[in-house]
């Protein structure tokens, strides 16, 4: 076991992790933050997207032991109390949520992208989010949600 400390959603956390454990597993099972989802665990679907030291990553592909002293933002850190993040609110209003399993990864990835690129084109949104797979919506409602934000 390896001891690590990291800042998750602004909070200092520590964990003893196996050298084989991903950041996703440690977030979900050790740090009690199950919002990030395990859907493929090989970096294909984006359901486990988190922001690690300013970079969007698939947390299933990052070894937890490599995250000592890192700063992590997960879906649990997006809303401010009862106030949803604008991406969350737009997804809710547009019908971008169905089963919801891809949703945490989608909102983390979209919020991160829009932070850096506040006015993307539809093509840019599609390309930037092409690493997040949704099986329910066909992406239409998600695109409408994010286009609405981009135009503000």
């Amino acid at each position, binding site marked *: 076991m390896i001891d690590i400390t990291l800042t998750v959603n602004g909070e200092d956390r520590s964990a003893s992790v196996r050298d084989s454990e991903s950041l996703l597993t440690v977030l979900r099972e050790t740090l009690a933050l199950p919002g990030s989802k395990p859907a493929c665990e090989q970096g294909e679907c984006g359901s486990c997207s988190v922001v690690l030291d300013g970079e969007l990553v698939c947390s299933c592909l990052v070894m937890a032991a490599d995250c000592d002293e890192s700063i992590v933002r997960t879906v649990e850190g997006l809303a401010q109390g009862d106030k949803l993040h604008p991406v969350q609110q737009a997804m809710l209003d547009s019908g971008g949520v169905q*089963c*919801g399993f891809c949703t945490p990864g989608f909102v983390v990835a979209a919020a991160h992208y829009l932070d850096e690129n506040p006015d993307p084109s539809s093509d840019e949104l599609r390309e930037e989010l092409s690493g997040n797979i949704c099986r329910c*919506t066909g992406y239409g409602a998600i695109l409408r949600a994010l286009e609405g934000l981009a135009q503000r």
Partner: protein
Amino acid sequence: MTLDQATRVKGGIGQSTIRPDGIPKLTGDFAFVNDLFAEGMLHAATRRSPHAKARIVSIDIAPALAMAGVHTVITQEDVPGDPLFGLEDRDQPVFAHDEINYWGEPIAVVAADDRETARRAAAAIEIEFDVLEPLTDPEEAERQGSVFRHMKIRNGDQDLHGEVVVEGYYETAMQDQAPLGTEAGLAVPDGEGGIDLYGPSQWVHADHEQVYPCLGLAPEQVRVHPSGLGGAFGSREDMSLQIHICLLAQITGRPVKMEYDRSESFTGHVHRHPSRMWYRHEADREGNLVRVEAKIILDGGAFMSTTNAVMANASYFAVGPYRVPSVQVDGYGVKTNNPTCGAMRGFGAVQSCFGYESQMDRLAEKLGMDPVGLRLKNALAPGDRIPTTGQLIETALPAAECLEQVRLMPLPPPLDSDDPRHLPGGTGLTTPRSAVKRGVGYALGIKNLEFSEGFDDYAEASVVLTPAGAEVHTSAVECGQGLMVVCQQIARSALGMEHVAFVHDNTSDMGSAGSTSASRQTQMTGGAVLEAARGLKAEVLKTHGGDDLNDEGVWRDGSLVATMDEVCANGPVTFHTQYRHPPTEPPNETGQGNIHADFAVAAHRAVVDVDPELGLVRVVQIDTAQDVGKALNPQSVIGQVEGGIMQGVGLATMEEMVVDRGRILNANFTDYLLPTFLDAPNVEAILIEQEGSWGPFGAKGVGEPPTISSTPAIVAAIADAVGKHFNRVPVRPQDITGVL
């Protein structure tokens, strides 16, 4: 109540009301089965067969049991009750014990302190196999009589023939539902010998019926709870890990959790049946269909699952929504050593739609007719009979209207960009714009709604008044499609109240709602909620002599005569219903009868850009018109339309489980391709609302029609672009280029 009154209530029907599970799903707070946790729980793992056909010579669990942290290892000899389970037929052993019938069949499960230990222990079990040759060719299975069900349909004068004849052979691949959430579950001993199960289920009462006999328990000792699913699309109708974790919990006395990874999810649930179809269409010179002959083989794999019903559906809808005076269909659901197939969105209607719509295009070509014109000329309408079963169509069925509306929708502009994101192949492959050819294709599809063939199909629900508002109680599973919100909307409109909560009840607290499948819950559980809400309202109005109800209480002549506290003075007021759709009947020996409860149609137009040299396809746009009866939540309906179409895009262009001698070669998201944001076409949809269905406020189920005719429309568009017919889906690059 008129519709106008009903829609006045805030959050009632006809409005795109926000779903109650939306915020928790957006914040990460929603508990999916994958997220469940219980204090002191053990973790479980499954040992599966590496062979598609074999005899088990010996199983030695000792090496697994000897590992630190392992609590128990169980095999078939540890099953205390019924050794078999199955959704339609109890034909499958809980664990393979003497023979292996498919690759990945479970042989043993392990419970351990943690998941990693459980997986290592499962791998440590020593099993000796006598490997046998698997039966994997479905045509050979049919020849050998390895058949679950043969569906024989004969309708009309069998000696009728047309002058213009088109024959074709078609195949559809094995598709996976690939819900984003994998199978996971938690079984918790209740301390009195019983078990609470939180698992991946589309129908908790069907799980209950299969679980408790295997445990050797009384029905009331097992409670199955509707739980958070990351999608389903048919994949959770059958058992996966439910019995296994309940057995482990029963034996260890501890809560037990199991979670499949993606590879095991592909192995551990059923798939869409691959099909082989032979068609002969005959028409007169004016384009009137005269006779259709079809032979359809669906590969059911090793165990029955829902093969009989899927195959029956493929057969009942084998000629599509067209008038045909003479029909001969033979459908076979065959038993092989391939992976077991069962339910997936569209349930048999998908496979045959690709066959008959391909035939319609070839027939139009042979007749020198416009393919849309040929379809319109033959389209079914109310008052016609379903050409296979002879059933009179008594409700709305706007087949021609759907197609006409789609044809009138504007086409997208021509390709005018060198941006690779707009080109076939996208940013990963280089296709010059000059090489790209555009094509347009149409297709029309039909499917039954609800369960058929005389099945006693019902849904139970209660509506309860409390001082805080109303509650809808049901055991109907929410897979993600929006069942909870539509139940709230129906109750709000029926009661005239805004405060309506949705409450999920387990199998002990509520009767069955039936399956969340067959596009049935809006009509069935929605129908039960409407009936219960109306019954409840009538009862409290009568009790208090009122003429209206709202969140404040009961009113008479504009004055409040009983507050909600007074209405509930003796406790909550409950109205419970068991709701049934119009009765259906089993088919006679030639497939005739009033077999279906309701039907829905949809039309699709696909616009594609194709690079014929590299065999690459970009689906540019899908336009659709769909028969929805009444859109109770327009935003949810559009969500079903868009999402269902994307699964049709997947089957048309990329989704295929590659199975070699029974073994799945691509059980992961790297090799099993799913449409991404960049693969997603623009979708424009028209919802056709026609009154007539018996569903609540005239609503029809909407989940499956989008997935049925979208696939053949795309294939027709590819064919239009490159001037060549295709006879299998998905259409692969080599099918377009002709070069392997």
